[in-house]
């Protein structure tokens, strides 16, 4: 398989905002972007899936709670259990938590305001399929924009995430949304499912955004898929 033959899908839910940016990030990383639709029971044979940021189904009830029951999500959950790389960004992270693919939940920011800023992160786990282009301890700068980005989980769950190296990224500087232990992103035990509150897809070109630090998530999964053959 060649890089260009690697197909990475991005699901559009009703209310998704960042699906087009995610598709663009996939293309800039060198893979073929594939638009997926929330209402289809079909992943079109893609090699990886991105659940993008924005909103979904109005986020009534709780963020991501209704999207979890979208037709495409039964396919995503099944494929993720089978090892398919899945990245949830912002609302996508919320959907992954509601789907129980990742532990914990995301609640309203502790300071009660929407946060939009360029955020420094440290990549703590550079061995997930979404982070191999980075090195552990590497600092990156990507946009962050959320109203409900406070990561919470039971203390035992947080301890387990830390002990197993499943805290993928952590906020540097002041905690932007009240997340437990400054957690910005986590993975499942296998490392194929990653949820991230900040937006790497908005930092893939010098023309707009705070640089290209975010591109690594997309080149990582491309390399992982190619290495797998």
């Amino acid at each position: 398989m060649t890089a260009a033959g690697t197909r990475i899908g991005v699901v559009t839910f009703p209310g998704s905002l960042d699906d087009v940016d995610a598709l663009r990030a996939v293309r800039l990383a060198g893979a073929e972007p594939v638009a997926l639709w929330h209402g289809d029971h079909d992943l079109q044979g893609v090699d990886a899936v991105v659940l993008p940021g924005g909103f979904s189904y109005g986020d009534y009830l709780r963020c991501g709670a209704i999207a979890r029951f979208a037709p495409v999500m039964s396919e995503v959950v099944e494929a993720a259990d089978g090892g398919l790389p899945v990245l949830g960004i912002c609302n996508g992270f919320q959907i992954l938590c509601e789907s129980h693919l990742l532990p914990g939940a995301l609640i309203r920011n502790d300071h009660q305001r929407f946060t939009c800023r360029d955020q420094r992160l440290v990549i703590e786990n550079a061995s997930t399929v979404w982070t191999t282009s980075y090195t552990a301890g590497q600092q990156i700068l990507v946009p962050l924009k959320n109203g409900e980005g406070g990561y919470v989980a039971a203390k035992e769950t947080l301890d387990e995430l830390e002990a197993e190296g499943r805290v993928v990224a952590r906020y540097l500087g002041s905690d932007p949304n009240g997340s437990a232990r400054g957690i910005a992103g986590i993975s499942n035990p296998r490392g194929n499912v990653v949820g991230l509150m900040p937006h790497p897809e908005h930092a893939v070109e010098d023309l707009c955004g705070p640089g290209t630090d975010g591109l690594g998530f997309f080149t990582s999964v491309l390399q992982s898929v190619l290495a797998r053959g």
Partner: protein
Amino acid sequence: MTRVVVDVMLKPEILDPQGKAVQGALPRLGFEGFTEVRQGKRFELTLDGDLTEERLAEVRSVAETVLSNPVIEDFTVTVEQ
């Protein structure tokens, strides 16, 4: 026709910024002495037919899988007479 009410509240240990915002507004309106406000959700479910044990179990299942997120929320189910 039966009505069942499901109340969903954030667990006590989970921070409730919405409730805090409401609490913060009270003194500004002259309401004093409210040491905490917690905000929750109330769902009124109307069912056709009689409420059997089976139907009630189904309501609990709805409350647990859809209406609440057990990671951060608790719920109670009340049958309205």
